[in-house]
C-alpha cells in the first residue's frame, strides 16, 4: 500500500534535489572547462575508465562486430565468383614475386656477409584490436586494447596494412585512445611525391582531409602520393597517407590509404627520431627525457605481438 508523503518530507526531498542538481550543474561546467583546455587530468580519467571497462566493452562489442561482419559477408556473397577469379590470378602473380624475393634475400645475405654490415634494429610496433569508437558526430577517435603495459607511448603513429590511421592521444595501462586523421583537430606534416613539396594534412570530419600550406600547388597533380614528412619528430617519415584529389577552387584533398571502414586491428609504431643538433650545447647534453624513455625496448609479453 502506498504511503502518502508528508508535506515536510516533500519539501525536504525537493530541497535535497535542488542542491544535488546545483552540484551536478557546477560539476558539469567544471568538466566542460577541463575538456576545452585539453586537461591531461581529464585524459587520465578517461583512460582509467577505459581500462576498467575494457572487459565489458569486449563482451558487448564482439557480438556486434560479428553481426556487422556477417552482414558484410552476406553482401560479399554475391561477388564471390569474381573475387575467387581475381584472387587466383593474384596468387599466380605473387608466386612469381616470391621466387624473386627469395633470390634477392640470398643475394642480400651474401653481400652483408662480405661487407660485415651492422643492420640497424627494426622499428618496433604493438598490434592492438579496435574495441570502441567515438560513436557520434563530435569526434573521430577509437580505443585500442593495448596500453602502457604493452609499451605504447604517447604520440605514436597508428597504421593499418595500407597506411596511416592516426596517432595516440591517451594511454591507460590496458587501453589507448587514437585520434584519427579525419578528426577536426588532426594535423599531420606530409610530403607530396614526386614533387617533394611539404604541406599539412588537416582533418575536417570527412573521409578526405584537406591539404593546407602547400607551397607551390602548380607543381602537384591529382593522384600524387602523400606520405608523412617526419617533420616535428612525432611520426616516422615515409608512412603512406593517401593520394591527392583536386577540387574546384584550387583546394586539394587526400583520399586516405587506410581502410577506415574495415579497421579492426592497428599497429602502434615506436619511433625515436634521429639525433639532431638543433640547439646550443645539443652535442654535449643528452636529449629530452621523453626520448630516452621511448627508446626502452618493448617487453616480449606485449599482447598482439610486435616485430
Amino acid at each position, binding site marked *: *500500500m*502506498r*504511503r*502518502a*508523503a508528508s508535506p515536510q*518530507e*516533500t519539501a525536504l*526531498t525537493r530541497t535535497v*534535489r535542488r542542491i*544535488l*542538481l546545483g552540484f*551536478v*550543474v557546477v*560539476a*558539469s*561546467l*567544471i*568538466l*566542460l*572547462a*577541463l*575538456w*576545452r583546455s585539453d586537461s591531461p587530468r*581529464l585524459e587520465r*580519467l*578517461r583512460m582509467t*575508465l*577505459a581500462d576498467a*571497462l575494457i572487459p*565489458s*566493452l569486449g563482451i*558487448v*562489442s564482439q557480438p*556486434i*562486430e560479428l553481426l*556487422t561482419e556477417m552482414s558484410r559477408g552476406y553482401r560479399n556473397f554475391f561477388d564471390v565468383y569474381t573475387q575467387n577469379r581475381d584472387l587466383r590470378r593474384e596468387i599466380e602473380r605473387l608466386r612469381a614475386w616470391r621466387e624473386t624475393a627469395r633470390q634477392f634475400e640470398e643475394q642480400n645475405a651474401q653481400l652483408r656477409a662480405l661487407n660485415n654490415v651492422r643492420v640497424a634494429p627494426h622499428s618496433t610496433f604493438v598490434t592492438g584490436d*579496435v*574495441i*570502441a*569508437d*567515438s*560513436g*557520434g*558526430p*563530435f*569526434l*573521430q*577517435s*577509437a580505443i585500442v586494447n593495448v596500453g602502457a603495459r604493452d609499451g605504447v607511448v604517447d604520440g605514436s603513429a597508428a597504421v593499418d596494412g595500407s597506411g596511416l590511421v592516426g596517432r595516440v592521444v591517451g594511454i591507460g595501462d590496458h587501453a589507448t585512445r587514437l585520434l*584519427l586523421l*579525419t578528426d*577536426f*583537430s588532426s594535423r599531420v606534416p606530409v610530403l607530396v611525391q614526386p614533387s617533394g613539396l611539404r604541406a599539412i594534412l588537416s582533418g575536417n*570530419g*570527412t*573521409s578526405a582531409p584537406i591539404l593546407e600550406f602547400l607551397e607551390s600547388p602548380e607543381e602537384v597533380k591529382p593522384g600524387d602520393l602523400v606520405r608523412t614528412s617526419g617533420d616535428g619528430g612525432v611520426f616516422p617519415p615515409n608512412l603512406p597517407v593517401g593520394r591527392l584529389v583536386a577540387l574546384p577552387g584550387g583546394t586539394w584533398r587526400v583520399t586516405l590509404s587506410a581502410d*577506415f*571502414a574495415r*579497421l*579492426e586491428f592497428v599497429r602502434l609504431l615506436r619511433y625515436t627520431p634521429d639525433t639532431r643538433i638543433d640547439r646550443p650545447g645539443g652535442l654535449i647534453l643528452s636529449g629530452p627525457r621523453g626520448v630516452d624513455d621511448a627508446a626502452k625496448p618493448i617487453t616480449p609479453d606485449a599482447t598482439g605481438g610486435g616485430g
Partner: protein
Amino acid sequence: MESAQWYSPYRLMRITLMMGLGLVAIFIEAAPLGLSADAYPSPDLLFCVVAYWSTRRPGSAVLIAIFGLGLTRDLMTDVPVGAGVLTLVIASEFLKSLSSGLSRRSFATEWLLLATVLAVVLTTQWLIVVILLAHPPYLIDLAYQWLATMLLYPVLTVVFRWFFQVGWRKTTATGPGR
C-alpha cells in the same frame, strides 16, 4: 505491497536495471561499427533509456545515477565532456516534471515531446561547442543521429515494457513517484 521509501527493494531493483541498461547502451554506442568519417553516427541509446525511466518511473531515475551514466558516456564516446552529461541531466529533470501528465496522453504525444527534447539537447551541445570555439560537428550528422534515435525509441519502449516489465505507474502520487 510496495513501500514508497527510497530504500524499497523494488525501487532499488529498478535503479539498478536502469544503470545496467544505460551501461549496455553506452557500450553499444561505443562499439566499432565503422570508423570511416562517412559512417552514420550511432543513435543516442542512453537518451532513450533515461527518457523512458524519467517519464515512466521518475522516482527511479535518480539524479546521481544519471549523472554517473552521462559522465561515463561523455568519457567513453565523443560527446564534449560536461556538455553531454549536463544536457542529459536537465532533460531528465524536465521529463520527470511532466511524467504525471504524460501518463494520460497517447504514445504519439510522448514521442513528439521526446523528439523535441532530443532536438533541443543536440542543438544545445552543438551551441556549447560553437561558443567554446571548438570545431562543431556537421548539423546533418546531428540530424541523422536525432532521426535514428527517434526511430529506435518505439522499439526500445516495447522491449522495456514487455521484456523488463517496466511501465507507467499505476497511480499518480503527489510525491516524486517511484
